[in-house]
């Protein structure tokens, strides 16, 4: 395996990871389900690509502008639908994601369905890794803060958290805005890595794949999302012959996870060295106990 190929996979998993982190906050911590995150990625990708290509703005500010554009559209969708109960937000994101793709299909300025070629390849492994580390740190801080705890409360019991005075609408909006921002920046990175973008790349399948990664990693676990994103981008690359069956297995696995272990791989727990040393200690003690029994 050559380094170029390997770093290519790393970059792709980093881009997936960034979107998954945002989605993890939305689905895993706030309990909202989105079918339209590929739409936010598309907005980020198209805006930032236009910024660097046609307006000559440097890469990082262009990424930020793309991210904020995605965030604004997220706020708009949220403002309209987040105060509805149940399914309706999820239906709205479905409509939003598909509408964005169909609108891009029809805009001549963005190249229509043929897409936007010749985007300068600014995305490197270094800046993907740096952006991801910043994103993880920010996310962990949000989750550990009062705001993050409020979001978890909303996920667990919406009505009860409203009764104790949490502004449910505000926190849902906050969660959606941050996750849309992450998705937008990831879209920008994707555009500047591949060098071309097409509306068809941001179909609903892309959104569902991202959600699957969050579910695999575990609802409500940041480290789970990280492991899930890396694993699920690497595995299909390594097992090329398995590629066609990938989505079949994903679909079946999602159902199995929901039935048997809805908390996913990490199940609301975080990866930490303390936890590992605890597990090792417990293991050792167990061995000791076994030894004593034998003697």
């Amino acid at each position, binding site marked *: 395996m050559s380094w170029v190929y390997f770093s290519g996979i790393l970059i792709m998993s980093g881009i997936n990871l960034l979107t998954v982190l945002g989605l993890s906050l939305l*689905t895993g911590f706030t*309990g909202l*389900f989105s*079918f339209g995150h590929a739409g936010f990625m598309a907005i980020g990708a198209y805006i930032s690509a236009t910024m660097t290509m046609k307006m000559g703005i440097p890469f990082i500010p262009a990424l930020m502008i793309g991210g904020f554009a995605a965030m604004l559209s997220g706020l708009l969708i949220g403002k*309209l*639908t987040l105060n*509805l*109960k*149940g*399914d*309706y937000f*999820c*239906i*709205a994101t*479905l*409509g*939003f994601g*598909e*509408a964005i793709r*169909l*609108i891009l*299909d*029809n805009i001549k300025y963005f190249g229509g369905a043929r897409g936007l070629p010749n985007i300068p390849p600014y995305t490197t492994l270094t800046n993907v890794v740096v952006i991801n580390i910043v994103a993880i740190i920010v996310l962990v801080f949000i989750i550990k803060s009062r705001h993050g705890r409020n979001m978890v409360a909303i996920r667990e019991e*919406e*009505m009860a958290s409203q009764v104790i005075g949490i502004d449910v609408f505000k926190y849902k909006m906050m969660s959606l805005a941050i996750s849309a921002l992450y998705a937008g920046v990831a879209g920008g990175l994707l555009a500047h890595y591949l060098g071309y973008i097409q509306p068809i790349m941001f179909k*609903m*399948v892309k959104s*569902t794949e991202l*959600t*699957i990664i969050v*579910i695999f990693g575990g609802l409500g676990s940041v480290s789970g999302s990280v492991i899930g994103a890396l694993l699920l981008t690497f595995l299909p690359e390594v097992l090329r012959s398995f590629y*066609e*069956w*990938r*989505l*079949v297995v*994903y*679909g*079946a*696995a*999602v*159902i199995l996870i*929901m*039935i048997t272990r*809805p908390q996913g791989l990490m199940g609301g727990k975080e990866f930490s060295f303390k936890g590992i040393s605890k597990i090792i200690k417990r293991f050792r003690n167990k061995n000791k106990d076994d030894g004593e029994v034998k003697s």
Partner: protein
Amino acid sequence: MTVFLQQIINGLSIGSVYALMAVGYSLVYSILNFSNFAHGGVIMIGAYIGYFSLTLLKVPFYIAFIISSLGTGFLAVAMEKAVYRPLRKRNAPFLYFIISAMGASIFLENIVIASPIGPTFRTYPPIFSTTPIMLGPIALGRIDLLMFVISAISLGSLVYIIEKTKIGLAIRATSYSIKGSTLMGVNVDKVIFIIFLLGGILAGIAGMLFGMKYTVYPQIGNITTKSFIAAVFGGLGSLPGAVFGSILLGIIETMTSGYLSSQYRDLIAFALLIFVLVVKPTGLMGKSTEDKA
């Protein structure tokens, strides 16, 4: 005026097939309160069963209808047993239902792509001549006529079952309150079984009609998203709403492709979805979704 009438007729025929699909979404929503996204996959399987019973078994088309609707009815029931029942027994949060439904739909779509059937487009063998019946200047396609008639008969029987039979009474009671009807001695498991069976049978018929009119391919499920939009448009959980919304959506779509451009057809459908969600999220005839906890 001719164009207008022509588009109305086209819209009615496509809308009636949307209605067959949309009632499947609405039936499940009215009782379990979640959108069964796997329904699109069931419709797709129905189209394939119809296709293979026509080409491999070489049965007449009305027998193909029966085979395909029985097949999808069985599939829908099996899916309920395997996927949703364990969640229901555990009182899982509604998020898990949507996630499982999404998983099931991905599973169904991709198992067809990965299997020897593959992602190729397949055309149904010609059953009727393609020359339309002319009513003055208006062309009435034979398949369009068939779509409309079969949809109307199926929907009529569904309404009969729900309004006039004992099991229909149980379905209506359960849609008001699962707990209340359990206390009154309704076997809710059986009601849900019937719901999925009915939805599945209609999905098979719809899938086959769809395949006859257009082509069969694994991503048909994405087109059925539009019937879901129709269900939302009419009001999720309401059967008359689903039918009315579907017919209206069908007419709006054909009008768009008749007067504007067929490129905007899908865009208009999704824009309509967002518009409805913003202005009146419960749709034209939907029940209110207040949290009663």
